[in-house]
């Protein structure tokens, strides 16, 4: 995006904020337009919950991949993920 003056326009910021709004999952999106501050707060808590999910899933994966003999069905699932 081009910055024509040193001041970022309000419209550009609003556009970016609505883009962030669109990324939030349904549960976190409020039906009416939320203020920018509330949206940022929701985005922060969403990012934190995603970090926690990564930690939790890493934990579960570490238990599952020990002594892993990949069966043919699992190989198929992995192949489909990579397609």
């Amino acid at each position, binding site marked *: *995006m081009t*910055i024509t003056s040193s001041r*970022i326009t309000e419209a*550009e*910021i609003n556009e*970016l*904020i609505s*883009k*962030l709004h669109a*990324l939030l999952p349904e549960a976190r999106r409020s039906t009416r337009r939320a203020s*920018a*501050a509330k949206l*940022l*707060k929701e*985005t*922060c808590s*969403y*990012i*934190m919950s*995603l*970090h926690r*999910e*990564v*930690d939790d*899933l*890493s*934990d*579960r*994966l*570490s*238990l*599952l*991949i*020990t002594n*892993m003999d990949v069966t043919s*069905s*699992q190989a198929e*699932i*992995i192949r*489909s*993920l*990579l*397609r």
Partner: protein
Amino acid sequence: MNRKNYTHPNPNPNYTSNNSMQSLHFIQALARINRAASKPTTPSCRTKQIRHAAYSSMAYTSGSRRKWSRALLIRLRQRQRLRARRLLTVRRRVRIVTPAMSLPEEPARAETLRRLVPGGRSMEYCNLLEEAADYVQCLRTQVQLMQSLVDAFSS
């Protein structure tokens, strides 16, 4: 910004080429961790390795295109080097804080967002919002990928 959405004969429209790259990178990392598991590793050590692989895959897929991925790659390599030299003993290390480039009218909540997005401290507010959106998308993809793998290996 349509670099992720070129037309591709993809039976699954939810996956783009970037997603495939991310999946491939992560699965290869998992395979490496699994092979190295012949050496005695504690479960918590393996969890950390997997977590490291997850953020690595995210960062490598976006590569040098994004500020957050560049910052994340630097952070991951620093941690790897410190861990190899067994210097990573404290969880929170002192880091040199560059003064945040906050405009006077931006809400105070942006401070938290700056901490959450890698490299966010030195971004302008406008870039921070853009980077945050990309970071969230990448995180979501990674979580979906890991959930699919957990489901696959649990059955």
